[in-house]
Structure formats: C-alpha cells, structure tokens
C-alpha cells in the first residue's frame, strides 16, 4: 500500500473542503481522479505531497505518516518518494532538460543522476541535442515529457499528476499519456492522475470521483 488516508479533514476558511474517512492507493495502481473545479482535487494532491497539513486524520505514504513529520522532513520525503507533474510550467526555464532532472535528483540526495536522466529522456523520445537546451526553448509537448522524466528520476512510490494533459492537443495528449503510463509502470510507481477529461479514464486501473470519497460538501 502506497497511500493510506484515514479520517482526513481539511478546511481553508470555515467550510470543510475535504472529509475523507478512508482512501488507499496500492503499489503500481493507476488512479484516475475526477471532479468539478473547486471540489478539492488539488487540495488533496497538496496534502498527499506534504505541502499542506490536514486539520485532523492521518496520511500515510509508504507506511510513513507524513503529517507527523517536520517541515524539512516532509520536503525531503517529497523529494525522495513523490513525483509531481503539473498542467504546465514544470521546469526551471533557464536550466537545460538534464539539469532540471539532476536538480530533482539532488533534492533527493542522489548523485550521478546524469546517466539516468539521459536514459529517461531518450526513452521519452527527446533527442540528445535537446538535452541541454534550456527548458524555455522546448515545445510544450517536449517540456511535459521532460517533466515525466523529472518526476520519475528518483523512482518515487507515488506520482501525482495534476491535469498534465490540458495544455496539450489531442495527439500530443495521447502520446504523453502513453509515455506516462509506460514509464510509471516500469518504475512500479503508483499514479494519481487528476483530470476532468473523462475520455482518458479507461486507460487507468481505477476511476474515482472525488465526491464519492469525500463527505464534505457545499463549498463549491
């Protein structure tokens, strides 16, 4: 079990936005999480990544209750065990593709990540001559592929993807999704993929509507 959430409660203002009695993610599982805007999808991802702390309840990642860790330990934990892919702007724009990946490896305390970075980039179809081009000069499709490599360089247990396809056109979207699922599969990384494009749902092993696991309501 990669993720185990119990009795999670969270609120920003007065109204609770999340109230999840129990929710788990198994190793290597691919979850498609959907729900309307403002339902708390991003909030859940931030909680899983240890950026936000729950008001109550526990969030275990890899058997560790991350809500009990200190701020620095949570940052370190995130670097080592959790990969993140955003909708867009995943990279430090002035660093090259390889350096972006090495930076992520550096935060996890890994050294000599250049070799693995190159392997991953080649597997993701990024030609050698683009490996050191600064990220801002890559196309959005290329940037998203570098983002997958960056997220997987430390072989995390959990990969969080927050609408990573919404900036891509249809063709790029399908290619991106294939690469993401393949690479996550090779690393045996569990994937929590947030999107509201339900057309993608059948490529995942489990589809969840946030409203089904979340008892909180009325904030949207």
């Amino acid at each position, binding site marked *: 079990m990669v993720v185990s959430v119990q009795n999670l409660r969270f609120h920003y203002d007065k109204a609770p936005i999340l109230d999840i009695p129990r929710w788990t993610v198994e190793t290597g599982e691919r979850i498609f999480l959907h729900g309307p805007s403002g339902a708390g999808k991003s909030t859940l*991802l931030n909680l899983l990544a240890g950026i936000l702390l729950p008001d109550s309840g526990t969030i275990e990642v890899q058997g560790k209750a991350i809500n009990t860790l200190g701020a620095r330990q949570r940052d370190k934990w995130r*670097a080592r065990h959790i990969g993140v892919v*955003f909708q867009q702007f995943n990279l430090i*724009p*002035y*660093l090259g593709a390889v*350096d972006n990946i090495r930076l*992520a490896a550096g*935060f996890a305390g890994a050294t000599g990540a250049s070799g693995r970075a190159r392997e991953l980039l080649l597997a993701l179809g990024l030609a050698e001559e683009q490996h050191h081009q600064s990220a801002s000069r890559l196309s959005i499709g290329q940037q998203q592929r570098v983002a997958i490599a960056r997220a997987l360089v430390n072989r995390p247990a959990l990969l969080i993807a927050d609408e990573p396809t919404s900036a891509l056109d249809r063709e790029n979207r399908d290619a991106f999704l294939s690469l993401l699922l393949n690479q996550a599969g090779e690393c045996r990384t569990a994937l929590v993929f947030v999107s509201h494009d339900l057309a993608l749902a059948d490529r995942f092993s489990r589809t969840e509507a946030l409203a089904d696991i979340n008892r909180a309501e009325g904030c949207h």
Partner: protein
Amino acid sequence: MFFRLALSSLWNRRGSAVLTFLAIAVSVFVLLGVEQIRHQARSSFGNTVSGIDLVVGARTGDINLLLYSVFRLGNATNNLAWQSYRDIAADPNVAWTIPISLGDSHQGYRVMGTTTDYFTHFRFGQGRSLALAMGSPFSDLFDVVLGSEVARTLGYRLGDELTLAHGLGSTSFSRHDANPFRVAGILEPTGTPVDQTLHVSLEGIEAIHIGWQGGVKLPGLPATVENIKEQDLTPESITAFMVGLKSRLATFRLQRQINTYPGEPLTAILPGVTLTQLWQMMAVMENTLRLISALVLLASLLGLAAMLLASIRERQREIAVMRAIGASPWFLLALVEAEALLITVGATLAAVALLALATSASRDALAERFSLFFDSSLITPDSLVYLLAIVAGALAIGLIPGITAYRRALQQQLG
C-alpha cells in the same frame, strides 16, 4: 549545482543583473578608491618628516611652527637668534641639529638656507634619507641644490644659473640678481615638501642679503663675490632648527628647557605628535568622504535588493516547481542570497581589479601633481574590513528579497 543554479538564474536575467553588477562595482570602486587615497595621503603626510626629535622656532603655535618649518606653508612669525640656536645645540643630549632659514623664493618655490647636515640627518618616510639624483650637496657659497619637482618643472640642469627673489611672491620685484646661484645638485623625488624646495647654504642666504636692509636693496654698488667672501657670513638669526637627540628619553626634558629658555621665547614641538594633531583637523573631511562613499554603496546594494525583489515576482512558477521537487523554503532564501552574493563578490572583485588598474595607470600623474606616492599594497587592512562589510551588507540586504522568496515558497501550493 547550487551555485550553478544561482548563476543560471542570474544569467537568465542578465540585463538587470549586469546593471546591478555595474552599480555595485562602481560604488565599491569609489569606496576603495577614497580609502586608498585617504590611506596614501595620510602616510604621505606622516612620512613628511621622521627621525627628527624636536623642531624649534620662535614662540608660536605648535601647528604653525610645523607648517612653516616642515611644510613651508605660511610664514614664521619671528626668527630666533643665532646665539639661542648655538646654546641649545651645545646641550650634551643633542646629537645633531639642522638650522633652517626661510624667506626667499624662486618662481614661487621656497628657498631654504641650511647646512650640509641637512643632507646627512634629515629623514622622511620610514627613515629614508635624502639622496641626490645628480650632482652633490652645496659646497660653494652660491651653490643651490634643487628639489626634484623644482628641477623638473623649471627645467634646470646641473650648472644652470638662477637668481633668487626676496620674499615669497613668484613675481617679486626685489631680486637678488647681483648674485646668481649655480645648480650643484638635484635631489631624488621624496613625495614631501622637500621636492618643492631650493636648498642653499646659510651663508649663501646671508651673502645675498648684504647691502639690504628691511627687505629693501640699498642703493650703491652691488657686493662682489670677492668682498662678500671676506666678510663674516654667520647669520644673526635663523627661522627654525631641527634637533636629533642622543637618547629619546631626553626629549620631553629638552622640550621643557627650550619652552622656558630664558634668552628669548621659543617653542619646541615633537613633529610626530603635531603631525597627528594636524591630521586630526582633517578628520571631518575624511569622515565626510567615507560617509558619502558608504552611502553610495548602500544605494547600490538597495538597487540589488530591488532587482532581486522584482525577480521574485516573475519567479512564482519557479518557486512552485522547486517546492514540488522537494526544495524547502530555506533553499529558496539561500538561492536568493547566493545570487546577491555572486553579484556582490563579482562586482567587488571587478572593482578591486579596476582600482589596481587605475592606480598603476595614474601612479605617475598622482606623484607629479599631488605628490601622492602609492605603495604597492592595494588592499590595506582597513579596506579588507570594508570588503568583509560589503559582503555582510549584501547578505543583510539580500534578506529582504530572500525572506520574500521564503514566504512565497511557504504559501506556494502545487498546481
């Protein structure tokens, strides 16, 4: 990787980074330049005279005596009698004396009557003695030894003849033109008022004033060299004299004796002490210069903070990415500080290099025009403190954007 990240980040904003770099480099250059000039002026000043235990003149203020006897600035209020000089010179504690007689000039440069002891005993800088670039000390009655600047500016060479003027104006109408002097020697540059002085023998001064009374040439035949030499040329009075003691322990006792000399009212000063007093009078100027250069530096460091602060607003996405891959808010603070440090250290090094270049390029001009002699030490212990203060200041001011980055990182969510 960390500094590479900081460097790449700066390179990404090279337009504003380069301008900030230049602003800091210029202000550090100003600060160190002022410090350098101050340091050199001070040591040039303090090096004007050394190895002399007492300077004695007619009763006057300490600083006034120092100014006219050593710096040849202003005029003596009074002369002292030759007999008083002989009395004090005969004191068993006195090792040597240098009598000086001022009052005449040549094209604006002061003429000083003295003895050849001047060339043996006078010291400047760190105990350096006078050296002749060419020729020899005066041996004849009408020999003159020129300071280096006098020789260079007026273009005199050995054997040239020149006439002295009575008084100090460069266009004096009373000239001692009956008795021209011959250039016997030219001194090496010293960076002291010696460079601007013409040295003749006491007897020479006495000789050109034969047939003068009260500063006016009496009518009649000018004295010829032959009948001058027959006369007794011992002066009746001199302007001041310098004293070297056998033992420094006697300094204060002798000073007290001279200050209470029964024959006439005299003043004796310790040149080192009075130089310090004089320098302290200039402390206000010095501190003003320092304050201004410190403010210029502060302004440029604030510019650095403004540049970094503006950059953080553009870097919201970057902060989100950093957080996602596990950077702590402290890392972002450190990154901003590293950028401040890189710019400041780089600019400081550039300023030091520029200063070295400017110093070596202007060395001759400064020596010639201002008698400022730069020694080789570019970085004085003082300026080392400044350099550390600059770096510390940059880090302190870098906290303004640094803390902003920290707080944004703390609030930043994924997505």
